[in-house]
């Protein structure tokens, strides 16, 4: 926020590594605040979203959810398809399949040969044509001029049911994915540390492995694995379509129903997901990186996304590292120990991690930063946060929420993300309300419960040369 060249730390955490979702998710239980405002209008539930915007939701007979937000400020619309499947649904030996399959979704179908999907959308002037896979979901996104609604509905509904995965395109795409893995992991210091943190923090649960998978698993994968995955998880009852822009809601519903209504729901359960046993002792690992500065990544186990604590962690994050005057910024950056510091919840469907990441200044050690971070976390446990600091933290969160909702894509992403994670996106709005009601006492209680060093995993990354010199001594 303060410094462009410092933003890679945040970008890597939240953007480039978006293969691993880190969205912040509300709890599932309290529904009154928002649901009281839900109005039935024909086949739609109408729900206030943000500012002057309303979302309309309809559910098709096959379970497909459609959520539409009308915004005529530009003659365009965002169209996103969210599937309730991610690397969490993989098994040992087949890691990376969800992400690999996301690549294959851009290959041919029974109606369109390979390349046509991209070509037709590009001809239409599509913007931001892309997809991403996380631990818990997979999304396919694009924006289009308003006159191309029929085109995108036709193409997306086609690939939901008619995809062809042949051996040749499977093998070529595997090479592409292996290259993506080299790019994101093997040749990136942050990528290596990130992978290391989750491998150490999770022993049995699928969050142990990276979303992009392991090289050997990708090499052993077959096109039949991909076809089986498609058959199992790409079903309308695991999907949410979000349309935001200059569209007529009734018209969109009619067209979506016509294109997708015939696709049968598969009602596939999640499958067996091995739970993670409770962490009872601190875990630590040292990594050696090609860098001149040390790095520190710490992760505390947290409850899953739909716990009441998730909103509390959001405020804790803001107090610790958000804005221009956060506690860790003062304690680590202002004091000349770190060049940058960030924190955040990897709030996921199963218990996640609250992480604190510091890039040290040259000559400073991760150990010093870790001691300071632990001291600041103890302060959260022992001393209530003053009112003005709470107010400031909540103001920052509110501001960031509005910023996120400033574009059609941003609104669509917010809705899709929250909808696949919670079953209804209005929980995301309610989550914002809940954040504003978090108290200093709740923060103390949560910090005491979760910032327990027996639940902590620490990766320290040190420059290779420095280590070699030390080793020689």
């Amino acid at each position, binding site marked *: 926020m303060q410094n462009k060249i410092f933003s890679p730390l945040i970008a890597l955490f939240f953007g480039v590594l978006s293969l691993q979702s880190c969205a912040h998710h509300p709890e599932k239980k309290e529904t009154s605040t928002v649901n009281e405002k839900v109005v039935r209008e024909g086949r739609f539930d109408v729900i206030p979203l943000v500012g002057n915007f309303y979302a309309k939701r309809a559910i098709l007979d096959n379970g497909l959810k459609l959520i539409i937000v009308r915004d005529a400020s530009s003659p365009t619309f965002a169209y996103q398809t969210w599937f309730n499947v991610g690397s969490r649904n993989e098994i040992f030996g087949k890691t990376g399949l969800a992400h690999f399959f996301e690549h294959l979704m851009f290959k041919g179908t029974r109606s369109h040969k390979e390349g046509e999907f991209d070509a037709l959308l590009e001809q239409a002037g599509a913007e931001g044509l892309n997809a991403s896979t996380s631990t818990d979901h997979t999304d396919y996104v694009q924006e289009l001029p308003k006159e191309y609604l029929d085109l995108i509905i036709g193409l997306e509904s086609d690939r939901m049911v008619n995809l062809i995965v042949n051996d040749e395109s499977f093998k070529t795409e595997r090479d592409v994915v292996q290259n993506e893995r080299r790019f994101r992991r093997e040749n990136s210091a942050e990528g290596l540390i990130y992978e290391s943190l989750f491998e150490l923090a999770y022993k049995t649960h699928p969050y142990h492995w990276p979303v992009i998978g392991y090289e050997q698993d990708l090499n052993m994968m077959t096109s039949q694995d991909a076809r089986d995955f498609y058959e199992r998880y790409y079903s309308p009852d695991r999907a949410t379509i979000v349309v935001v822009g200059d569209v007529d809601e009734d018209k969109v519903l009619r067209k979506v129903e016509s294109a997708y209504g015939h696709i049968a729901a598969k009602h596939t359960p999640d499958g067996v997901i091995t739970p993670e046993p409770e962490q009872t002792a601190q875990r630590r690992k040292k990594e050696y990186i090609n860098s001149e500065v040390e790095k520190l990544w710490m992760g505390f186990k947290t409850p899953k996304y739909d716990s009441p604590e998730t909103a509390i962690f959001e405020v804790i994050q803001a107090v610790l590292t958000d804005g221009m005057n956060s506690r860790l910024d003062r304690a680590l950056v202002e004091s000349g120990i770190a*060049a940058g510091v960030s924190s955040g919840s990897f709030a996921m469907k199963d218990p996640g991690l609250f992480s604190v990441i510091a890039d040290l200044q040259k000559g400073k050690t991760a150990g010093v930063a870790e001691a300071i971070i632990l001291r600041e976390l103890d302060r959260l446990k022992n001393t209530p946060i003053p009112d003005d600091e709470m107010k400031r933290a909540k103001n920052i969160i509110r501001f960031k929420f509005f910023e996120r909702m400033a574009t059609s894509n941003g609104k669509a992403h917010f809705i899709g993300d929250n909808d696949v994670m919670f079953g209804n996106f209005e929980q995301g709005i309610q989550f914002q309300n809940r954040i504003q009601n978090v108290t200093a006492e709740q923060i103390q209680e949560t910090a005491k419960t979760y910032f327990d060093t027996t639940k902590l995993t620490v990766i320290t990354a040190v420059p290779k040369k420095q280590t070699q010199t030390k080793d020689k001594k």
Partner: protein
Amino acid sequence: MKSKNRLSLAFSLLLLSSVTAKAAELFFEQDRALPLVYITVAFRGGSAQDPDHKNGVTDIMGKLMLRGTKSKTKNQIDITLDQLGANLGVETHAEFVALRATVLSENLKPFLSLLSEIITSPSFRPQELEKLKKEHVSNLLDELGQDRDLIRLRFDQAYFKGHPFAKNNNGRVKDIQTLTVNDLSKQYSNLINDAQMLVLTAGDANESDFKSFMNDIAVKRADHFHIDSIPDFTNDPKKLRVVIFDKPERTQTQVMIAQRGVAFNDPRLDALQLANYAFGGGSFQSRLMIELRVKRGWTYGAGSGFKLGNQPHTWRISFFPKNGDTPAAIKEALRLVTEFRDRGLTQAEFDAAKTSLTNSAGFNYNTPSKRLENNLIEKIYHLPDGYHREFASRIQKLTLDQANQALKDFLTPERMMIGLVATSSISKAEIAKTLGMNEKDIEVQDYKSE
């Protein structure tokens, strides 16, 4: 201590001399959809104007402006920004520096008051400078761990050696370490000036909300300035040049291949932009993507594009294959460029690119913040008003012959520079062999070398 007092005095005199102020230009667009206001205050003059051996002075100057005014410490500024629900940062480019802000509309007035103070009365405290320098240097060192950033950085340094475009927007470690408050004050005097200032705003506000802000920043600023124009670069490669930025243990190579580009005012630019789209400029159906990724699986990403400004910079191709595929991928990319120059676009490619660029043009200005950005670019690079909005209509008028003639005139595949972040001991011999070069003609630089 003495030195500090002298510098403070010099700076005070500078501010007192601001008696011939002009009104800065204001661009405003109302948009009430969300309670946010976007504000950019830009100044013509950026890292290309950093004096020799002081690369980074513009960027550090901008960042230090946010770390203290005559009446507020960094801590006070930071607290105020958080309380207001605002963010404020500095972006340094080769030809301009910009303060970028977003604020909750309910707090616009106090925010503008703070911003005015930051622009007109920075304190440049030596203690803050020393802290900032350490943070900044550590971040520059950290960037060396990101191969994708590293290739961009090192490539320009090698290609434009001795020219202002070789300067990194965020500076060089060894230069930053020597910067003084006096250096910053001089740069402030040169760049932060009414005559070269642009104020661009959009969002949930009224134009009148900015009236007193414009007056404040106008009357308090000096009106003398000195910006060196960027000289023409005359040292383009005379033949194929290969430079390896040697980094240990790479399993993948970051490749950048470039030749001299065009300036914003080059009459061929639209035709070349259209051609570039078909070659590698964002389309999944581009020649680069089809040949390097779809057919061969050599790289996850492959693209090409222009770096644009008032002076010609570069047209560049980038991709990142595994080490074993790197020589063949480079050879194929060069073959594609040569073929593109010699045979040009096909009619089908031309039609597809034209349709796609025309249909997608609306996304270039579909939000207030994008329109604000377009306006900034148009002003900074002396483009006609509406340059971005008119893009589609200009593209529609192009013919295939114009595009192919522009390619013939422009492309020089025999005189490009190939930059690689790679492990030299693994890659050098095979690259030389594949490109038919003598191994000793391949330049090798330590990846840390500035």
